[in-house]
């Protein structure tokens, strides 16, 4: 009876699948959604050039990627993880505990975090980091006291700014972009405040008190989808958006970057670090997997090649801000030789 046959084969299939240890011939990559497009580009180029099976690239976020990456050694664990910040000591610890002892760190370039606004907005926006902090932080100094953020209009922060309501769309706390924004813009802006400078507060105090974004309306968490933020900015000419520079770069006809301390976000200003809100992008590779997983070494060579990483390479065309030449050469040598990273501080 066909019915019985189908049932039996279904059970057989389940049994087989349960016992199959995934013998894989493709590279597996997890990690940051910011590094994802660059890794995708390298993976596709690599597969086209060599005819090898294309690596499987999964966007899990930096933190999620580290958890999976540090899960252990072996075919069921990924070979590479992308990160939009350096590995944290706790993650390094986790890796060590699970036997992932030899990891190479590769800094592939920089990504600018841009504040953008619709081109329909006529004002030439130029904010200082302190103004950004005052507009978006949960707690700010009010009359010499550290209190909940009272500002609702931009001109309350600086009379030169237009009298429009503060409204900014940004990434949620699970995003590496958010971590980077808090660290690079909010902490730096907080440190610039006269209240903090005169009060003699140290870095720990800043980390503790200046990390929270306000939750009373002006800052809206718009989810991980940056295209959605772009659409919302088009719909509301007075809203600001916070996202990676590559999204601004692709949408320059609709959006303009908000200058920070008089500097416009662009490939040049991010590369020479004059634009203050830029972050390094990394990938991490398990040295124990090299030579075991087929093609892993060749893939790393492709990632480290001048074609990919140089300032006129194909990753730059996607918005990655390349490293200076001497730094790139040092990096290529270290990564290709499999120099293991030491514990981060």
């Amino acid at each position, binding site marked *: *009876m066909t*019915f019985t046959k*189908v*049932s039996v*084969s*279904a059970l057989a*299939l*389940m049994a087989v*699948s*349960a016992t*199959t*240890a*995934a013998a*894989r011939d*493709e590279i*597996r990559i997890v990690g940051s*959604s910011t590094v*994802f*497009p660059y890794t*995708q*580009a390298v*993976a*596709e180029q690599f*597969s*086209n050039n060599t*005819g090898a*099976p*294309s690596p*499987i*690239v*999964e*966007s*899990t976020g930096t933190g999620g990627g580290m958890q999976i990456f540090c899960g252990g050694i072996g075919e*069921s664990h990924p070979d590479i993880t992308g990160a939009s910040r350096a590995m944290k000591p706790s993650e390094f610890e986790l890796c060590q505990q699970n036997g992932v002892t030899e990891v190479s760190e590769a800094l592939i370039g920089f990504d600018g975090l841009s504040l953008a606004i619709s*081109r329909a907005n006529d004002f030439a926006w130029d904010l200082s980091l302190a103004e950004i902090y005052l507009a978006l932080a949960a707690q700010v100094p009010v009359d010499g006291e550290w209190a909940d953020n009272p500002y609702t209009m931009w001109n309350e922060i600086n009379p030169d700014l237009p009298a429009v309501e503060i409204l900014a769309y940004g990434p949620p706390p699970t995003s590496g972009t958010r971590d980077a924004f808090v660290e690079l813009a909010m902490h730096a802006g907080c440190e610039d405040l006269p209240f903090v400078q005169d009060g003699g507060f140290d870095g720990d105090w800043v980390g503790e008190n200046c990390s929270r974004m306000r939750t009373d309306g002006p800052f809206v968490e718009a989810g*991980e*989808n*940056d*295209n959605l933020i772009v659409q919302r900015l088009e719909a509301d000419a007075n809203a600001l958006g916070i996202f990676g520079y*590559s*999204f601004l*770069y*692709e*949408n*320059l*006809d609709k959006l303009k970057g908000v200058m920070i301390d008089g500097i416009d976000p662009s490939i040049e200003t991010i590369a020479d670090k004059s634009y203050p809100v830029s972050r390094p992008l990394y990938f991490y590779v398990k040295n124990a997997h090299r030579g075991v997983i087929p093609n892993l070494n060749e893939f790393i060579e492709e990632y480290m090649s001048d074609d990919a990483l140089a300032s*006129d390479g194909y990753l730059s065309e*996607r*918005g990655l801000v390349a490293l200076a030449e001497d730094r790139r050469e040092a990096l290529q040598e270290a990564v290709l030789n499999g120099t293991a990273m030491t514990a981060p501080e």
Partner: protein
Amino acid sequence: MTDITNAPGPRSPHRTTELIAGTLKRRHAKEARLKWIGLGAIGIAFTMLFILIASLVSSGWQAFAQTHISVAVYIDPQEVPAENLPRGGFDDVLAAAMAQMLPDADTDDRATMRSLNGILSNGAQFSLRDQVVANPDLIGQTVTIKVPVSDPFDQLNKGLIDRDTIEQNRRVTDREIAWFDTLKDQGAISKPFNWALFTNADSRFPELAGLKGALVGSFWVLSICFIISFPLGIGSAIYLEEFAPKNKLSDFIEVNINNLAAVPSVVFGLLALAVFIGWFGMPRSAPIVGGLTLALMTMPTIIIATRAALKAVPPSIREAALGVGASKQQVVFHHVLPLAMPGILTGTIIGLAQALGETAPLLLIGMNAFITSAASSPFDSATALPTQIFIWADSPERGFVSRTSAAILVLLGFLMLMNAVAIYLRQKFQRKW
């Protein structure tokens, strides 16, 4: 004799008619109002559906055509030596061919040559390479190839880039627009149907990206889901309907199956992550895991539909079969199940259609990876249609905006097809008693 009209007692028929006549207008008005509210509700539902489809079509229709360019390429033996294949300077050969079509381009300038190459899709050099590798005699000859143009020029050709914006603010420069117009005047540019949308797997480049990987992935996922959930679902339904004693335990099971049908799909995803991937050690991103997960989700739907279909078979058929000496198993397989099949199939197809559109559990088991080849077995990594839409919706390149809508339209097309099959089966095999 009593005066009827004055007597207390039962109301006169005449008065009742009057009473009815008095409220009749109000009741008719109420009826009309109900009718209009109902019509209004349908109107709103249809307007919503229309807006959804219209917005998808208006942003997605452009993705069904792709701008191509025909280039006559001289395969220079100096750039592409036969002994070096498959490696060779195919991009240089292409840039030279482009320069020939655009006489005003400065061929000595590296940046100019790069932007000439930028008109062509990145895939052009690889498709040329594959042609030459397949037929090395082409070296030294001139071949005409038709390749996609890169995304910014596709957008330009489709009128999605406003030529009046300031040069710095658009992805193509004035010079590139002039080149493109020259090529268009030469008749090299065409805009055929975008078959690549169905024959290519995913790509970083919108002009090369297609749904093949997602379609194949969805096929594997649904096959596994069907193979597991269909027999298990029917088996449970037959037991519960035909054999199970009516007691507290079977009531308890029934309530829980109904509850299971209402569990949010993301919970099944977490379960699959913990059990199938974590405990059984199955591969991440594999359709086998996706299929098993969705089978858990589809099974309650199938059980409920099958039980309803079995219930609808009149008891007289069972009794007649039992009466002529058939065993219970024979009654079920020879009489009840065939008669219930149309209902079962309808329920199954609707359950599978639900599974086809399911995204959340697939995201949790990693079926949203970037994979540039289609899976050849359920154990390979793959994406599915909804997760492919998820990936494209999050991509910065402009070309993916219309491709996302196009992919949604393809998904909706498949859902409608499956529902149409369900309706057809029901109409064709339905029996009236």
